[in-house]
């Protein structure tokens, strides 16, 4: 099943984590969706790097947080907050490319018993 991240998430946001890092939170709609996303590993360092046109070494980590059905990705800001050439001091509008990220996701229940 081909899905877009925005179709299975309740929150998709970006924000500064200090002036030199940018952190993305994706809260999935429910625990089943969270588990599917986690198992499928569709949100990974390589995917974030290509989505944000940065080297993979600049993706600091992908962390799953089951309590909130959330996955978090953190990158080094290409330009620090408020420095010359930087466009988003708070980092709150860098989530756009995640919204339409499309991938194959195994539907719930599919593959069970096989």
């Amino acid at each position, binding site marked *: 099943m081909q899905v877009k991240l925005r179709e299975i998430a309740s*929150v998709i946001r970006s*924000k*500064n*984590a*200090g*002036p*030199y*890092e940018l*952190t993305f*939170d994706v*809260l999935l709609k429910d625990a089943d969706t969270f588990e599917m996303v986690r198992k499928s590993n569709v949100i990974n360092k390589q995917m974030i790097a290509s*989505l*944000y*046109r*940065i080297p993979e070494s600049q993706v*600091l*980590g992908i*962390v799953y*947080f089951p*309590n*909130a*059905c*959330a996955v*978090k990705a*953190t990158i*080094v*800001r*290409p*330009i*620090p*907050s*408020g*420095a*010359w*050439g*930087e*466009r*988003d*001091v*708070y980092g709150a*509008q*860098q989530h*756009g*490319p995640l919204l339409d990220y499309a991938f194959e996701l195994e539907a719930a229940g599919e593959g069970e018993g096989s």
Partner: protein
Amino acid sequence: MDMTQSELKILAPTGIVGYGFPEESFYAGVALKPDVIACDAGSTDPGPYYLGSGHPFTNDTAVKRDLTLMLKAARQLDIPLVIGTAGGSGADVHVARDVGILRAIAKEEGLTFRLAVISAELDPGKVCAALREGRVEQLEGAPPITEDELQASSHLVAQMGIEPIIRALDDGAQVVLCGRCYDPAAFAAPAIRLGYDKALAFHLGKLLECATISATPGSGADCLMGYLGQDYFRVEPLNPARRCTPLSVSAHTLYEKSNPYLLPGPGGTLDISASTFTADTDRAVRVRGSRYIQEEVSSVKLEGAKPTGYRTISICGNRDPLFIARLDGILEEVKKQTAENLSASFQYRLDFIVYGRNGVMGDQEPGTGVRSHEVGIVIDVIADSQEEANAVCSVARSTLLHFGYEGRLATAGNLAFPFSPSDIQMGQAYEFNVYGLLRGEDALSLFPRTYMVLGG
């Protein structure tokens, strides 16, 4: 007597002093007889200008309104009021603004109280010495910290932990106004001072510093009440229109942090990987199981910002498809012609921020070209003096306005200006230039306290 036998009630009126809060929520909290009122007042989010220039990012009138309500209630209940990161960035000049506001409130409201002011501004020479001893290092993504950069910072601050706040309260302060402060410390300090669990106090502080952002619907400008027990804490919004749920509270830990499980602060790290979040009622959440990892050598976070020149900008628009089709080439040519029209001695940076193309994401924008019928353009100039920045912006603007590109039909001008004057002087521009850790300093003496009686 073990104070922790009973719940400690901490009222957090709003996310940042000056962001406002509904009086109904606040007085509902006051009616519950809190033991402490505490509020955060700062952030690096608004960027380097505020730390660098010394200007607060919060408005004087709005701060006075918020502090008036907090101060009157705290004095009436005879409980401590603790304000973290005064003036938005917490350098001495920011703190002084808030001392002035407190003094005015004391006079107008006829209040008398003992105030502790805690400085977080550092002498660059002292940090240079620590650097030479290998006790200073930059944080992830930040540039290396050098003696030149330390000296170039117009303000250099460190985030204080609980120690100086506890000392101020021990010394009899009724109001504690902190310079740059680790956000949860303003809430955790009064609790830890009374013997409450450090991990739970910090975790609760983590939630209270953002007020009702951890509620649903969330808001950074409404009141949250925290109840701290021996082996748990509870949070509940004071506005009946909001609820705290296990999901909203646990999800909040993600906010603005790179790792939701390990939250480092001065002196140690809060570990919430084993924390549990359960519904106490349909509006209140109970948290247990948080842990605290004490650092062997305590460290504090350093923040500095330095001036980078003077900025002048111009805001304009274009909705001509012929212009938009040739936009990239036009802007390159205008940069070239601007340089040719100015004295070679001018040191400046000129950029065009194009909304409708990649204005929000810059080089990270995955889309290409312009898909809208119009573009917004910000001409952005930084130069060594305001006069030079004005000159560069003026020449770039007039060159772009009348630029005769290939195939042009609209020969009267390429730009729509929403304002007259078209150019805006922005004054000095700044950038963060120090962001790292300073290890092995005394957590108390690094942040000197000054005591005074206001009012009376």
